[in-house]
Structures are given as C-alpha cells and as structure tokens.
C-alpha cells in the first residue's frame, strides 16, 4: 500500500489507463503545460505529449462536444472541467448529446467519455463557484454519475469509468484533493454502481457521498461519544444507485439520515429518501432527515458560508433526532 493524495490517485488512474489504451486522451483547460489547475494531471503532458494531453481554450461547450464526437468514433476522452460549475455552459452537450446519442441512434453509436473535475463548495468562492451538480446530472437517463471521497475509491472508480462504454460524470472535491489515503501498489478496479460501508454501525444509517463523506464520519464519531452507533454508507455511484445497500442497512437500523453537499430541493437526497419510503416504509422508526446546504445561494462571507454548509454538528443533531435522543 502507498499513502497518496486523492489528486495523485486521479493522476495515476489517468496515466495507467493512457499507458494501457492508446484511445484514451485527456483534454481541458490548463491540463497540460500548467499541469492542471489542481495538479490532477501533473507530469502527464511530459509523459504522453501534446497529442494525448490537450490544453483547450475556455470553451466548455466546444471541448465537451469535441470529446463526445471523438468518443462516437471510438476514442476514450477524459474531459476535465476546472470546476463542475463551468460544466453549466456545456450542459446541453452532456444532456442532449452524451446522454442521448446511444438511445437516439438506436445503438449505432456509443459515447464512452468521462467528464471529471471538482464539484460543490470549496471555501469562500461565492454563489457561482460553490454549486453541487449531481442533481442535474443524476436526473438524466443515459448518464452514469460517480462521486468519490477517498484516494482508493478515486483511483479504482476512475479507471472503471474510463473503461466504461457509457458517458460518466465523475465528481471530485477541491477541498479533498490533498487528503491522503492508502492505495494498493497493484492494479485494481472498483465496480460502478456499488456503495461502500465507510463505517459499520447498528443504530442509524447515514447515507452520504463525495464531500459529505468526511462530514458524515465526524458526525458518527460525535454520535459514538454519546453511545449511538451510526453506520455510514458512501454511495460512490449516484446513478445507478446501489439502492440495495441502502435498504439493507436501513432494515437493520430502522433510522436514516442523508448527509450531502448540495441543496435540499429536488436533489439526490430526495431520491434516496423516496427509495427508502417506497421499499422500507415498514422498517422505519423515524422520518428520514436531510443534512445539506440551506436552501440559499452560497454567500461569500465566511460566517454566512459556515451557516449554510452541512457540518458534523448538524449531522449529529439529525442523528439524535432520528434516534429520539435530545
């Protein structure tokens, strides 16, 4: 095992897949000569050259579209968005081309492409640069949506995403790029669509993903100090969702909290709760609660941002509420 940062797990996944498969290439703003805005592609230009590591102008619709067109020809593009906030200007390409072409052409074409980059709030970036995009993409049939929170998951899932025949939206975290984790020396893949129990427990299920994972784990620690044993499930793949893993846990604990970075209204958290109430209603001993952003655009000021974000303390409050402890 090696202890590496998430950004290097991502870089290593890309490098291994590029070395393995000539069809894989990386494109995006500053991915080459600058070595990546967050250094997720450090050294790749030097190793693979300008043919396969392409700096693009600031034209997300343009290079997302080029990636889709290249994928239809059988190449395997990795398109980096400097942040997923900028994917908004390429939304039509992802919604109407990447997600639709296989269906619309009755299977004549596939779009094996990965769109990746940091997602959700970092620190004091204001409303336009602090948004969580998984509800927009997870809403769309024809897309796979992944959100990673550890170096191990980032490397294993990104490699699977690059090899997948489908368009994959791969969500990372600016705040977590430096977080270190253990990664095997030998090659491994993590299957898409499988959740992971990040902390086993028996009293309450906390369902989370991406940047929510470390928050949920801290909430579980705080709860443990009060004698509540929380199980933390990291969904890892948001579409298709590992509903079975969620239901199995909820049937055991009878209580659930969904903790995530993002707005409450119409989000992935709603889908988790809908699945629980449809399929495990009789197993519930309390309403399922959400801990997420407040329903406001993200303010810049530090004190206000801290009020909007999900915290371990807010997570603990929800865990207490569903276990009827005050």
């Amino acid at each position, binding site marked *: 095992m090696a202890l590496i940062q998430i950004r290097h797990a991502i870089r290593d996944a890309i490098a291994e897949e590029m070395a393995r498969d000539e069809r894989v*290439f990386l494109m995006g703003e500053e991915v080459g000569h600058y070595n990546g805005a967050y250094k997720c592609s450090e050294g790749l230009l030097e190793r693979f050259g300008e*043919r396969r590591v392409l700096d*693009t*102008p600031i*034209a*997300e*619709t*343009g*290079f*997302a*579209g*080029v*990636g*889709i*067109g*290249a*994928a*239809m*020809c*059988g*190449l395997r593009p990795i398109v980096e968005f400097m942040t997923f906030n900028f994917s908004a200007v390429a939304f*039509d*390409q992802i919604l*109407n*081309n990447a997600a639709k072409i*296989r*269906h*619309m*052409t*009755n*299977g*004549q*074409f*596939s779009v*094996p492409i990965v769109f990746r980059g940091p997602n959700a709030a970092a620190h004091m970036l204001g409303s336009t640069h602090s948004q969580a995009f998984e509800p927009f993409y997870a809403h769309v*049939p*024809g897309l*796979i949506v992944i959100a990673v929170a550890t170096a191990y998951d980032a490397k294993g899932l990104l490699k699977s995403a690059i*090899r*997948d*025949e*489908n368009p994959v939206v791969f969500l990372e975290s600016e705040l977590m790029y430096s977080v270190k984790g253990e990664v095997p020396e030998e090659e491994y893949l993590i299957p*898409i669509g499988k959740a992971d129990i990040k902390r086993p427990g028996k009293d309450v299920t906390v369902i989370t993903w991406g940047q929510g994972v470390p928050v949920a784990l801290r909430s579980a620690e705080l709860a443990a100090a009060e004698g509540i044993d929380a199980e933390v499930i990291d969904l890892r793949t948001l579409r298709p969702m590992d509903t079975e893993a969620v239901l199995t846990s909820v049937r055991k604990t009878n209580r659930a909290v969904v903790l995530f970075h993002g707005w409450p209204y119409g989000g992935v958290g709603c889908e988790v709760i809908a699945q629980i109430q449809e399929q495990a209603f009789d197993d519930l001993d309390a309403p399922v609660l959400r801990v997420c952003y407040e329903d406001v655009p993200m303010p810049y000021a530090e004190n206000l941002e801290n009020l909007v974000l999900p915290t371990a303390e807010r997570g603990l409050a929800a865990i207490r509420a569903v276990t009827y402890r005050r």
Partner: protein
Amino acid sequence: MVLPCAGPMTSHASEPVAPGDDNAHFGSKEDNLRWYREMLRIRRFEESAAQAYTRGKISGFLHLYIGQEAIAVATKELLQPHDQVVAAYRTHGFAIAFGSAPGACMAELYGKATGLVGGIGGSMHFFDRKHQLWGGYAIVGNHVPVAAGHAFAAKYRGESGVTLCFLGDGAVAIGPTHEGWTLAGLWKLPIVYVVENNLYSMGTPLSRSIPVEDITLKAAGYNMARERFQVTSVAETKARLGEAMRLAREESRPVLVELITYRFRGHSMSDPGKYRDKDEVEAWRRSDPMERTMQALRRLHGISEEELEAIDEEVIAEMDEAVRFAEESPAPAPEARFHNILAES
C-alpha cells in the same frame, strides 16, 4: 475557387442569381439523368411524407428539404469511405441521397420498429452509420463541436477521413457553433462546415438574425478557408464543395462554405410561410436546380417528355412502396423504450 480568409463579397443573398444556361453548369447526359433522378427521389419522398403528415400518419416536427436537394446529391458523390456527414434536423435528403432505404426513412417518420433508428428518433434524428450519415441533431448548433470531434478522431488516428458538417443559417448566431469553429481552426481539423443558407432562420430573414450578409466573413476569425456560392446545379456544387473537401483532406485545413439555397416549403409543416411573398418564391423557382436539370435534359440531351414521365413514375412507385412499407410495419415493441439507454459494459 476556395478563397483564403479575406475576399470580396459576392451575390446578394436575398435575390437569386440568374444562372447561366451554358453547358458548363451541367454534366454529361448520364450525370444529369442520375442527378435528376436522385433529386426527384428526395422531392417525391418528402411530398409523400408531407401527405402522410396531412393525413395524420406522421406527428412531431417535419422539416422539408424541397429546393435544396442538389446539395445532398452533390455531397453523396464526393464521399470517400472514411468520411462522415453530420447534419441538423432537415436531413431526409441526405439519407435518401446516401442510400438509406426510403422505406426505413418513411418508417422512422411513422415511428415504426423498422425505421432508420427503430422509431426512436423521428424526422429530426436520422442516423444511418452504414451510409455515412452521422446525424440528425435537433438542438441548433450543438452538432458543430461534435462534428469537430469526429475530425479530431481522424487526425488523432492519422486517418484520411473528412467530416462534412451541415448547419443552417439559423445556427450561425448560437454559441456552440463558434466554439466548434474555434477548435476546428485552432487544431487544424480536417472538416468542412457547410452553411446551407436558405435565407430564413424559421421565419426570420438573415438581415434580422446575422450582422453580416456574407457568413463566410466569419471564417477569418477561425483561420478557416472559405467559399461561397449560390446552388444552381449539382455540377457546380460538386466541383466547389469537392475542392473544399480536398483542402480539408490533403492539407488538414478546415473550410467554411456558405451555400445560398432556398426551401420552397415552410420551415416545418406548421409554417405557412407568410413572411415571404409569392414573387420571391417564384423567382427562386426559376433557379431550382432540379427544374434546371430537367430542362437541360430536354434541351441539351434531347430527353423526351415520355422519358421524363417514365422516370417520375418509377420514382413515385418507389416512394409509394416506402409509404406502404411504413404503414404495414409494426410499432416498436413495448420493451424497446428500455433499450440502448446504457451500454452493457
């Protein structure tokens, strides 16, 4: 001749050029017979589709190509095996010209299982990979960067294929078009962008939608070569479009071509075309490439009325058969709605 970036403006787009009747505009007797038949096949296919639409057999949007057929017919004859054509939502003509079965095309309009894409796409989403038709895109301009991606893939692999991307004049204002053109120019991709300028973006004339009259002036900003002319014959269109494709293929030089053309029908079936007067439509009818080819067959090659009539009867019979095929084809199976959303990896 394909011009470098800067160059003079040519014809005024809102009035048709009176095409010369000199023989240089036309090919041999065999060429003209073939071109006439192919243009007629597209026109009769679409007339049959329009009738079916009026009878309520086809729903959704139906955008007819009538008047612009010479472009698809010329394009077909320029394609090499590794080339691909990407178009927007006025695409029936390309499919018919490229060799897609008229029955499969009609069945697609009918939403039948035997359709070009199994009844999943409809009129606006024609794809026939085997016949080099790579869409079929109905969000205006969003195919422009995708087409650049096809050209990128050819260059990445060192293949000789050229991408031809057709868009309407109505797609010239929107953002993705310019991002696609930027990357095509920046990376010197082997692609020819062809603006089919039929003078109206739905009901809005160019003078109210694009700040310059000559769309190819934009080529300068993207380091593309440029070419602009009115489509009056298959022969000239083939020659000039062919030169643009040669530049793209041999020099990996992107080219922006503006073809001035005219659609005789409305934007879609629901458009009565009240924004243009009869005189204008009549003026353009006189330079209709299909009509002119028919006249050339009579005048230059001595083809008789009976022979022309016989061609028409054959074509009409072919399209009647396409309609029969569509009507008798089964609807897609209920489970088809779940197919091809994700690939099984």
